[in-house]
């Protein structure tokens, strides 16, 4: 197996056209004029940056209340975990599992998986390249499911506004959680999976 980069070939990230590298440094796609590079520039650094940001926001997203509910019968504030526990206690264990998986496990798993991938590339761990590639595909595909909580909160805030009787407000965890999801997606996007195989020859 040989990489296209070793032969001086670019692959356009936008239109997929393969082109030969010119003599001078710096190249653009002859068809769509996208700037070309053999690998995503500073892919690992970007990935790390996004991951660190995601990790920083993951803590407040889970510890701060995501939703304030106030009604005639009192008010309460819920964190993601307390909502899951409430669902579990009230018998909706399947819902609890879904929310738990989508809101707590998936973002955390994504962060861990991407960190592992970035570390493996950075420190040149040579083994299990195919599994790592599969992991990357998995991370990319499940990213869209993580916004479940944000959708729920956004819906409730918009729908339950009966001023005197009941009101739902988004808590500080909601934007933090949304940011975590967006940042992990950005991290996955910035990671160039081709880097997994780049040191195969060495």
């Amino acid at each position, binding site marked *: 197996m040989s990489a296209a980069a070793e*032969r001086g*070939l*670019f692959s356009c990230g936008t239109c997929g*056209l*393969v*082109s*030969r*590298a*010119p*003599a*001078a*440094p*710096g*190249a*653009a*796609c*002859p068809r769509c*004029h996208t*700037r*070309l590079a053999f690998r995503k520039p*500073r892919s690992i*650094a*970007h990935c790390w*940056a*996004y991951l*660190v*940001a*995601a990790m*920083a*926001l993951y*803590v*407040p997203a889970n*510890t*701060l209340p995501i939703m304030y509910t106030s009604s*005639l*019968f*009192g*008010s*309460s504030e819920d964190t993601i975990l307390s909502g899951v526990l409430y669902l579990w206690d009230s018998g909706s264990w399947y819902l609890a599992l879904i929310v738990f998986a989508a809101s707590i496990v998936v973002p955390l798993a994504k962060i861990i998986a991407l960190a592992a991938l970035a570390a493996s590339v950075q420190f040149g761990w040579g083994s299990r390249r195919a599994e790592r590639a599969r992991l990357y595909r998995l991370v990319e595909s499940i990213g869209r499911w993580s916004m479940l909580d944000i959708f729920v909160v956004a819906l409730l805030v918009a729908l339950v506004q009966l001023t005197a009787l009941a009101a739902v407000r988004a808590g*500080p965890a909601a934007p*933090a959680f949304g*940011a975590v999801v967006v*940042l992990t997606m*950005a991290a996955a996007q*910035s990671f160039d999976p081709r880097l997994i195989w780049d040191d195969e020859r060495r």
Partner: protein
Amino acid sequence: MNGDSAPERIPEALPAPKAGRSLPLVWLVPAVALLIGAWLALSTWFERGPVIEIHFHTAEGLQAGKTRIKYKDVDVGHIGEIALAGDLSGVIATAHLSKGAEKLLVEDTRFWVVRPRISGSSVSGLQTLLSGTYVAVDVGKSTQRRRLFIGLEQPPAFTTDAPGRTLTLRAEDIGSLDIGSPVYYRRLQVGQVAAYALEADGKAVKVTIFINAPYDRFVSGHSRFWHASGIDVALDADGVRVKTESLMSLAIGGIAFDAPFDEPEPAPIPPDLVFDLHRSQAVAFKSPDRLADSYVLVFNQSVRGLQPGAPVDFRGIVVGEVAAIHTQYDPQRERISIPVEIRIYPERFTSRLRGGAPKAGRLSKDGKFVARLVERGLRAQLRTASLLTGQLYVALDFFPEAPKAQLDVAQSPPELPTTASTLEDLHATIVSLANKLERVPLEQMASDFTNAMQSLDTLARRLDTELAPEARATLAEMRKTLAEATKTMGDASRTFGAAEKSLAPDSALFAELQDAAREFARTAQSLRTLADYLERNPQALLRGKSADAQ
């Protein structure tokens, strides 16, 4: 490299000179994220208020994480966790207060659960039916900080910042008072009962009341307090008087107070003064008796109807009361006696008119004065207060004819001689009367009476047989005579009728009579004229009428 033909067809990328090395802006993202995260964490940390523990008797209505804590209806925190106390005597609620609530947490701050409550005097906390219970706070005045509190079972009657005055009363029993029972001054509600507790020795109840400002200035050191709960019915010379504070106090009890006399300026109240809570207004206004002399009375009659507390009066004025009634067995003389212990308040003998000389006229304790009075005939006597109920009281009075007796000063308490009661006298009189009646020959009297009746009967019968026929004949004659008289009367009546008819103004006889009368009058006139003429001219009798006379 498997064939060069393929690469030949691959187009060459356009040369694009690299732009100047730009800053790695991507690192701003984690920096901002970290900043936001740190800010969130810090703000949460700083917004965290103190955590306290409140000990409640029960967690009724409390919900972990939901129940709010409110001060003056402002949310200052919530109950975080509720756990049973270690000794299972209650629950410990961990409360998370908001930032800035430290000021609330002082030594005498009070917490209580606001639930719907319906008591005799008020309905409160109804809003909690909908909103759920909450924990209310009343902030104390102390500056001592505290983290562990005992929650109140009852909401306090007044908040610490309410202006007014707290007073302590000592009562024999609680009556119908409860927390929140009203306190009246001139029938105006000026305060309420804040708390009550049994005293340590269990012999009295300590009632804490709160008088709202500005009425608290009407309380003076001399104020008297009494139960305003019941109806005070008094029967006296004016008739029946019913007295009560208000219908409300009748139902739920209450306390009233007033000064016993007019004070220009309320006397200051010593800080630890405990007022007495009297049974009624009359008792409250009775001047307190500080001196009491005890005496023993031995009655040789039944004391049924005499009770401890019964009045001892002197000619109608209550000067003391019966303290106790004992029975005593004297084994030497083998006699059972009933010593009655009485208390006399000598101050009541003090002449008010001779004010300024409190010793004057006092029934002194040294015995000499009383002994002298006994020599002059002072005796105690049992009298009936009410024939209906048979209640007895002890009367002191002078009985100069009573047999001589001495005040037994040696005994303690000294024994006052007694005399038989008036009822006892009455009893004796009735008995002697009955005895006299018994000696009357009632049967003899009855037979005499029967004889007399018989003679009367024979007399009546004789009258019937002898006198009646004669009387009957006389009566018949009388009837006949009467009939004749009636006839005569009829004839007379007829005669009178005819006379009447003939004398009627329009009858012929009447007209003739009138004519005759006129004629007679004329004749009389002529005669008078003749007489006059003859008087003036007597010669006319001889010579006849002269011509010039015409």
